[in-house]
């Protein structure tokens, strides 16, 4: 008999099952990458006189997970927020250098910031669902894009919630608000909201830092599934998590990219002394 995922996923055994699954997934051959999806060339950023990113040059590949690691204040979140221009919200920010997402120049004057953010979704450190019903949360991006067709919205809602592995838990209470959700469920709701508009890239800013280990593993499992369709860039403080979920890892230190390479290499044979010290826990 065929066992579906839903049948097995009782809370008690999730942790163990995911572990084995994650292991299996990382061994399986990846679908071929389409080449670099996000291209950063000499990206610099300064808050006023405070120069926080120095000449970052790196490529993030299509349908791969790129992890950004490094000690607090090293600029990894700032770089992430450069990719969908969330730094625009802060006064006195200057960015220079080139960032291209699927060929679209992010910082060019002619580029519509709304367009970028629609193509580059984002999941935040603290889950931030709107004070609306689950349904309205998920279809928010479609609604503000002017889509009002009920069938389209319903379809997108189900697809996104399934995509975020939340459908079976909430399908009977879509019109209720997410009150009483666990932190993990709320974070998955935010992921569902992000994928509802079918972005090309998903940025994750420490998505699991406020979650317990089991919820964290669920999200990690989800990242594995999402990778088949989306390019993912994840910022994390959890080195094990970076090792588990990412294909490539970039190590930042004091606003500079110190080392960038395949995750397996990075965690077994780091080329740079600093990387090694950080990974082995000598600082950070």
């Amino acid at each position, binding site marked *: 008999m065929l066992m579906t995922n839903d049948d097995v996923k009782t809370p008690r055994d999730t942790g163990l099952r995911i572990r084995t699954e994650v292991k299996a997934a990382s061994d399986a051959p990846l679908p071929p990458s389409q080449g670099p999806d996000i291209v950063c060339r000499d990206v610099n950023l300064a808050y006023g006189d405070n120069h926080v990113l120095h000449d970052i040059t790196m490529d993030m590949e299509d349908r791969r997970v790129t992890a950004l690691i490094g000690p607090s204040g090293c600029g990894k979140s700032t770089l992430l927020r450069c990719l969908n221009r969330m730094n625009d919200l802060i006064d006195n920010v200057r960015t220079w250098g080139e960032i291209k997402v699927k060929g679209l120049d992010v910082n060019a004057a002619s580029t519509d910031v709304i*367009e970028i953010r*629609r193509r580059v979704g984002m999941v935040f450190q*603290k889950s*931030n669902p709107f004070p609306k019903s689950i349904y309205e949360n998920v279809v928010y991006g479609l609604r503000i894009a002017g889509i009002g067709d009920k069938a389209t919205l319903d379809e997108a809602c189900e697809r996104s919630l399934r995509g975020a592995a939340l459908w079976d838990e909430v399908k009977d209470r879509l019109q209720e608000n997410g009150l009483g959700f666990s*932190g993990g469920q709320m974070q998955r709701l935010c992921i569902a*909201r992000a994928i509802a508009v079918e972005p090309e890239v998903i940025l994750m800013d420490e998505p699991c830092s406020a979650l317990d280990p089991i919820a964290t593993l669920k999200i990690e499992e989800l990242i594995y599934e999402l990778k088949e369709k989306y390019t993912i860039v994840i910022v994390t403080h959890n080195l094990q998590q970076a090792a588990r979920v990412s294909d490539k890892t970039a190590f930042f230190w004091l606003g500079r990219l110190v080392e960038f390479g395949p995750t397996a290499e990075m965690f077994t044979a780091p080329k740079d002394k600093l990387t090694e010290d950080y990974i082995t826990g000598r600082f950070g």
Partner: protein
Amino acid sequence: MSDLVKSLRRGEPMIWFTGSALGISILMIAGLIVVILTNGLGFFWPKPLEQVTLKDGSVFLGEITNREAIPNPGHTDHLRKQRILLRVGNRDLYGFDFKWLNEDEIAKREHPKDAYFVERREYGALIGVPVAVKENERTLAADTAAARQALPGLIGKAERDRHAVERIEKHEIGDINYRIEKARLEARRLDLVARSEPGRDLSREREALAKTTAEQQALFQARTAELQALMEKAGTTYVTFQSAEGGAKELRSLDIYRAYAANELSWLGRLGVYTSRLWEFVSGNPRESNTEGGIFPAIFGTVMMVVLMCIVVVPLGVLAALYLREYAKQGTLVRTVRIAVNNLAGVPSIVFGVFGLGFFVYFVGGGIDRLFFPEALPTPTFGTGGILWAALTLALLTVPVVIVASEEALAAVPRSMREASLAMGATKFQTILNVVLPAAAPGILTGLILAMARGAGEVAPLMLIGVVKLAPELPLDGFFPFLHLDRKFMHLGFHIYDVGFQSPNVEAAKPMVYTTAIFLLIIVVLLNLTAIIVRNKLREKYKTGAF
């Protein structure tokens, strides 16, 4: 000594000190409510009528309304003797309503069972014994017993007749007058048109107008005749009352509003009189320069003005707060504006009244009159105080409160929620509309509640811009455009002042001050309660996650 030190260290004196401050505050507020309630609510309760015979033989009949010690400084009897205040009514017979009587001059006090307390159209209460009923010189009842029996029927008939008269007088003739006035203004407008465009042929319009006017005039004649006939038919019955010292008063039955034998009323009967008086007070129009009758126009005017004020103040305040908090670049200028807005809330309200008079009434209203109502000039339409200008001035007075509360509410919306929306590709405007404003709505409503509480109780500025002692018409009626924003209106706050301090019969009006105050409080509480319920509903709806 060490005990004191210990207790100081534990902070007990501070607890007592701060606690007593709170206690005093609560006591004073409770005292205010108790004073207003006891003074106001007892007003309608029918009191027994006491017949007092003095040693010199003079007789007085009335309600005892007060008893106090007689001040006579420097003498041994200072504050030793008592005197009573008797409400004797019959102002038309005696020339006064109230009489102080020294208790040591009183020979006899009794409660005559036939004594009646009569509320009538003019001259205040009549207190006496009914002795006869006549209709056109024909005697219907010749003695007290028969007259008493006839009274309830007469009062019921009088009420029906009054309704009929009022229907003709106020509604039908009022409507006709309104149309005639409209036609007159239209004719003047045509004159103005003729002057500016000499060549234009206006004869057809003039003819139509003349026809309308003639029709309405004919209708007016018919209605007036009808009214006269009704009055003649209804106004033929007279009840003769005998006052305590023997004077007689013939009172047209049409003018009797309420009459009861005060000393024979059962407890239930008193309750009946009480409720009927209370209902008249809430739903009726004022009589006798506001000292009698009801306060309905004042309640209506107050509520309507506050509602109009809210309609203006909420969008204005919220938009201003949105600009200050969401769009403006935070800096010295915005900080200065914010301080200025806060200070605006502290400007004395009469200053706003003066501004409203100068700007809204004379400048804006005068301009509107010259542009749109030139035919009515020199009589102003909008160029005089009215409910619209009052509502706008109060909106201006309360807008700082709404701005401050809205700004706080907007600032309390978590940044993460805005970022979530913006990261989805929403514009700033979409984010504000879909996420920020709904989340801030409860806080904004708190501002509205504060604004309403302030606006509903404000009197001083209104006196300059539209509140009147007696408004002949409500600002809402059956004539297009139904809402007459140019009309003057009555207001409970001003009514309190007017009844208490501008009335010809201060002693009789005094309790009405308290009763009106109760209703002002009730209105404010009800308005606030509505807003609070809405706010709590919104809070429930926009409750954020488990954090």
